[in-house]
């Protein structure tokens, strides 16, 4: 099963190291593969270093792709995560 979503980064300091680490922790809870696409780059959400290569800033719009059995739960929680990244 595959679910996709488009997300805009609202947090003013962007996806820096701490939120990236938190996202990776969250992503690892799921069996599904979770991928973030930004411009020409793609990152595995379970790898902090991968997430950081995207250099996501406030206003960056990403394409979220979740593929696997638990994709419903995963996409919900990841969307939730981006809504409530704390600064």
């Amino acid at each position: 099963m595959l679910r996709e979503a488009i997300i805009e980064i609202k947090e003013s300091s962007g996806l820096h190291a701490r939120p990236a680490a938190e996202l990776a922790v969250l992503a690892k809870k799921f069996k599904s593969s979770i991928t973030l696409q930004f411009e020409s780059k793609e990152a595995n959400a379970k790898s902090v270093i991968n997430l950081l290569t995207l250099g996501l800033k406030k206003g960056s719009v990403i394409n979220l792709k979740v593929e696997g059995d638990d994709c419903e739960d995963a996409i919900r929680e990841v969307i939730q995560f981006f809504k409530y990244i704390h600064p």
Partner: protein
Amino acid sequence: MKNSLRTHVQSFGSKLSSMIMPNIGAFIAWGLITAIFIPAGWWPNTELAKLVAPMLRYLLPLLIAYTAGSNVAGVRGGIMGTIATIGVIEGSSVPMFLGAMVMGPLAGYVIKWFDRATKNKVKSGFEMLVNNFSIGILGMACAITGFLVVGPVMLGLTGILNSGVEFVLNEGVLPLVAVFIEPGKILFLNNAINHGILTPLGIEQARETGYSVLFLLEANPGPGLGILLAYMLRGDAEARKTAPASSVILLFGGIHEIYFPYVLMRPALIIAAILGSASAMAYYQIIGGGLVSAASPGSIISIMAMSPRGMTLQIVLGIVIAAAVSFLVAYPLVGGKSRKSLQEAEKEKKMLKDYGKSPCKIVFACEAGMGSSAMGATGFMNRIKQEGITVINTSIDTIPADTDIVVCQSVFVDRVSDKIPNAEIVVIHQFLSDPALDELANRLSPVKQVLTPGMIVLGAAGDTRKEAIKRAGKLLVDAGYVNNKYVDKMLEREQIISTYIGMGIAVPHGTSGSHEYVISSGISIIQYPEGVDFDGEKAYLVIGIAGKDGKHLDILSSLSSILSDEEILEKVKNTDDKMIIYNVLSNIN
């Protein structure tokens, strides 16, 4: 006062006072001759009193003109300034201090402009001819201009200034001047006020009336003395201990700067200084007192020496009045605990003093000071282009005493350190591109290169996670990228969630609230072949990161992009050559 305005005023003021101050000795010689030999003097002598007029008309203005011109363009500027000023002097009927202060630097700029325009264009063998005739011809032109144009204009201007001074003196508003002078002193405009403005005006007045009260306005040590006395009786323990010695230095040595920190410690004390100074001015105005010439430094000794005959005690009484009034006002203000300690105030004083001064003077030196060093200086100046840093070139023998950094080739190092032992010496092999120059430029630059080879440490071992973070932080601190506090913030950040980002890399950095401790974006890289334990993960590369102005994210992103390439990462983890790491990561910015 706004900082930039203060910088301008201070640097303009220091230009004015630097024309006068080296010549104060001549003012004193003239003052002594006047005080002793004129008919009203201590020991009247009509023969020796003949010295008074020509010294005032020629010697003092020409000395000022020479100094002013040489401040602009060295000895040649000084000579030009002097030639030009003789024109102004003869073109007007009164002594031309103002004229010297205008014409001296102006003529200096003329020859500086000429020398610059003809640089490297004179055929060899003709330098001396060109040098001598350029001053001869341009000097003649300046003297004529001075005689015909500037002299009469300055005469008018001097007249206007003098009538302004007379107005202030006659209308009884002199004490109000204290409102400007006292705060100005604390802002280190004391020399600018005294020697840039009051001394030239005062000499003008002294010529007419024999003495001038203007010499007493800034030089009176009374107001500062009153404040120090108040501290002696009621200040906290530290101030009580230091104030006696300070007051001796102030009263007899005439170094007014010594009481400034005591005022900065409790800024309300400026009122005491103003009222003390205003009272003395009112008193001097009532008795019609003054000094024959500049009293510099402003000590009781020089003030007594410059007092007209028969007025010494009255003049000294003015110091006593100023001290008494300032003491009475200061007394209730100095009790209790002060907001700032004396040391803090001292620091603030130093900051005020250094305001407007170039924080850094760099001299490129070579044997002649003209060829290679000139090329090096120009190249370096274009490269750093930064306010506050002066870059000049000189010969080894003429390196100025206030130089901070000397750049020279290794053969000259001994001569340079003999000549100027306190300066830092940067040794280079060639003047245009040299690694030592690169490091210097980066160190001086407010926007540094994010990574330099010096920020890479290879083959580290045995550190804990905390030690590794501190070490990465210390590298950033030592190279001037961040201040000490940032290291604490790095450790704090590590507590929230590990900065291990995978693939054997940890990127310790400060918390979100720590940008204020970052001076310039930079990274430090420590390679641990055995790894450091980061919460159960092994970090083989510990990379300290400090991002300025939102650069943090860019650095993180380009760093992780580059190191995501496993082949590159393996090289960086295992190499024993710093330059390999540097070359891989030097594009990060």
